[in-house]
Each structure stands twice: as structure tokens, then as C-alpha cells.
């Protein structure tokens, strides 16, 4: 054996803090192994996730599917503006790290089933980039997603669409850990990916947001349906590092589709409650996507 190795062991061995520490046998039963994809920063091959849907593709049925899957456009307010933040504003690292370290299992975490189900409520006109003339629209849909990305989207009061499997990946756990260029992009992308995540993936996502400079904690905030959660926000970088509000008439395109995005997380489970996109200069108009009724099931929703 290398002399240095032996000397180091002789020297340090007795001072080992774990020398007599009792450690039980390993049992992986409690680990949640359903997250099939690498979500760690050292991951070799993150699952690609389209950052933006092609705008011209937002037409007909396909547009509706994309809208539910993640595109947030300019929308009208339902039930008044979200409540103002009430507590502990500051760097996002503070509230997000605390939230990540303390999250509890959600109802869906304790369930089993092939499909992840979530109800998605959106307000807006998803094809506004096409003509700019579409009316404000309320869309409510139930989405079921299997690990291979296949599933179904059923619009409340409307039709349903079967989703094909995604080659090589899952849409539900497809958080890519390639860091986005700006805090706003990071909030947008992780918010979109967080429609239905297991506990460990939520924890990883929250830590990731906590580590993103420019993401700020807004304290407690209510989503448009009245659920109170912990809100974090990010502004477009062209508004400067100290932006706190959106001036009227500001336009952050083409770098961003929006100038500000706010995420509201359940303070107990860390689940994403809502993603808000205010309209510059018009606080009465805030785009949002809300998530609710998450569950696991083996039964695909009925057509």
C-alpha cells in the first residue's frame, strides 16, 4: 500500500466522526423511483422540451392541445386581480430553499396508477399571435399523462384528444436542467414543466429555482381561484435588475413572449398552483394557467 495512504489512515482513522455511528441497512422501498429521467445538473442527456410552441402551429385542435400543455398567452382576468403579496418578499433563494426542504407528500404522491392526472384551467386567447383578434377565452381541461408521454386531454364541455407517446421521454417529468439564459426563461420553462411532478422532482425544481439569480420571492399570494401559496417572480432582463413593476407600453418581444412571470406554489406540498403573466400597464389583465385536482389513476379519461 502507498505509504501516504497508510499514514493518512493511521492519522485520521481514530478521528473518524462516523467510526462508531450506527447506520441501519439500506432499504430502497421508500424511494420514489418513478422519475425516469436525470434531473440533476450533472445529467448527461436531459430530455429535450420545446421551449416555445411554433406560433403559426397554434391552429385548430393542435393549438388547443398545445395551449393546455403549456403555452400561456395574453388573457383576461377571472374574478379580479390576484391578491397582493403579503409577506416576506426578498431573494427567491430564501423562500424557495425553505420550501424545497420542507415539502410534504401531496395527495397524488400517495397514489399509484399509470396516468398522472391534472386539471388545467387557462384564461386567454392562445392564437392571439396569429390574428390578434380572437376573444378572451376560458379553457378548462383534464389531462392524463403516462410515463411514455401518451395520454389524453379532455376539454370540459368539449372534445377530447389522445396524445401519442413522446419518443425517448416523458412529458410529465421532462424537466431539462440545461440552464436557461435568463431568470424569466427559467421561471417560464420550469413552470411549464411543473404541471405534475413527483415529490423529489418538485424538490429538485424548487432548488433549481432557488439557485437562479433574478428570481425573487413575493411572499404569500393568492391565485385567481383564491388558493394562497408562496409566490416567486422574474422580470425580463431588459427591464433591469431592480424591476418591481411593469411600466405601461413596455414590450419585451422578441426576446420574451412576456415581461414578467409569477409562479405560486403550494406552501405545504411545493406543487405549482398557478403561473401568472401580467399584461404591462394593465393590471386588470393577467394571463394565468392554474393546476388542480392532481391524482394518479390507471383509468384514462373518457372521451
Amino acid at each position: 500500500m502507498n505509504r501516504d495512504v497508510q499514514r493518512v489512515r493511521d492519522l485520521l482513522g481514530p478521528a473518524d466522526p462516523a467510526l462508531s455511528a450506527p447506520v441501519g441497512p439500506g432499504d430502497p422501498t421508500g424511494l420514489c423511483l418513478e422519475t425516469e429521467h436525470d434531473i440533476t445538473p450533472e445529467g448527461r442527456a436531459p430530455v429535450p422540451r420545446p421551449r416555445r410552441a411554433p406560433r403559426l402551429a397554434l391552429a385548430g385542435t393542435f393549438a388547443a392541445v398545445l395551449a393546455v400543455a403549456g403555452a400561456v398567452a395574453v388573457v383576461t382576468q377571472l374574478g379580479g386581480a390576484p391578491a397582493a403579496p403579503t409577506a416576506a418578499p426578498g431573494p427567491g433563494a430564501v423562500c424557495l430553499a425553505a420550501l424545497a426542504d420542507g415539502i410534504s407528500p401531496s395527495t397524488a404522491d400517495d397514489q399509484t396508477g399509470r396516468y398522472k392526472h391534472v386539471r388545467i384551467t387557462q384564461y386567454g386567447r392562445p392564437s392571439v399571435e396569429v390574428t390578434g383578434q380572437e376573444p378572451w377565452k376560458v379553457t378548462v381541461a383534464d389531462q392524463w399523462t403516462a410515463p411514455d408521454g401518451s395520454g389524453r386531454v379532455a376539454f370540459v364541455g368539449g372534445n377530447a384528444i389522445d396524445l401519442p407517446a413522446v419518443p425517448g421521454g416523458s412529458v410529465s417529468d421532462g424537466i431539462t436542467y440545461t440552464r436557461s439564459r435568463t431568470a424569466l426563461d427559467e421561471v417560464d420553462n420550469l413552470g411549464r414543466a411543473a404541471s405534475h411532478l413527483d415529490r423529489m422532482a418538485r424538490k429538485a425544481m424548487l432548488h433549481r429555482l432557488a439557485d437562479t439569480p433574478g428570481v425573487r420571492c413575493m411572499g404569500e399570494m393568492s391565485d385567481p381561484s383564491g388558493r394562497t401559496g408562496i409566490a416567486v417572480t422574474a422580470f425580463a432582463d431588459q427591464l433591469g435588475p431592480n424591476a418591481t413593476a411593469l411600466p405601461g407600453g413596455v414590450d419585451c418581444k422578441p426576446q420574451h413572449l412576456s415581461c414578467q412571470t409569477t409562479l405560486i406554489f403550494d406552501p405545504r406540498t411545493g406543487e405549482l398552483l398557478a403561473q401568472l403573466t401580467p399584461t404591462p400597464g394593465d393590471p386588470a389583465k393577467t394571463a394565468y394557467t392554474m393546476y388542480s385536482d392532481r391524482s394518479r389513476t390507471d383509468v384514462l379519461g373518457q372521451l
Partner: protein
Amino acid sequence: MREPNEAWFRAVYAECYPAVVRYGLRRLGASGPAEELAQEVFLTAWRRRHDVPDHELPWLYGVARRLLANEWRRTRPTFVELVETPAPAGGVDELLDVRAALATLSEDDRELLRLVGWEQLSVSEAAAVLGCNRAVCAVRLHRARKRLTAALDRAVPAPAKRTGALL
């Protein structure tokens, strides 16, 4: 060639879990955070199961090290309460001196010395954890060991400060 399926994972978990927990215990100072770190390590191993080599433990230590660097060190104290540690054969004073001396070294030196002295890794295995080649690691170990010895030869910490050591 082993198939990285759930049976393989369970076997690796059962074999390596205590060692990974002890790795965390040596750096975090408490069993709860150490067990939580171990769970994160094994979740990463599961997600990257096709990348895990046949000799798993150094790879797992490498994951733990990166997790500590990226996440845990930011929020978790690395202050080890000596009251939780049984007294070694050489006496408490000797233990305190060794730890105090170790605490004076750079983080790179400390981690290499811990991997060899506490995790009982060979130079090649420690090199794999640290991402350097074996020859470089051997030289670094030699120098780190000499610095540790020199630190031990210097002044003994005041008794009033001997309540713990930053490892």
C-alpha cells in the same frame, strides 16, 4: 454485463447505503441530513443507472460530493459536534488535535484526506471521485498529508474552543 434493473439497484443500495450515509455523516455531522443526502445520491444513481460503473462506491461518493457542493453546503452547516462522537483509543485530546489540524487545510486537501483516511479509498478510487488522474492525486495526497502533519505540529487549539471542528 450486469443489467441495471431494479434488482441490481436494490443490491447496490443494500451494499452501499451505510457507506454513503457515513460519508454524509462525516461532512454534515448529523444522521438526519446524512440519510437525506444518501437518498438523493441513490435517486441520482437510479436515474443514471446506465452510467454507474461496476465498482459503484467511488461513483456514488462522487455524486454525493457534487450534491454537497451544489446544494447542501449552501444550506447545511458542516460543524461536527464532537459530543456525538465516541472517544477514540488515543483520547479526546488527540482526536481534537487531528480534527483541528484538518480544519486548517484547504477544502481540496481535506476532501482528499477524508476519502483516503475515512472512506478508505485507494489513490485511484479517490482520483475517480475527485475527477483527476491517479498520478496527480498521489502527489496531492503526499502534499496534503505533509501539510496535515505540519498543522498537527503547530499550536494546539485552546481548550475553550474544543467543542467541535469545521471539517
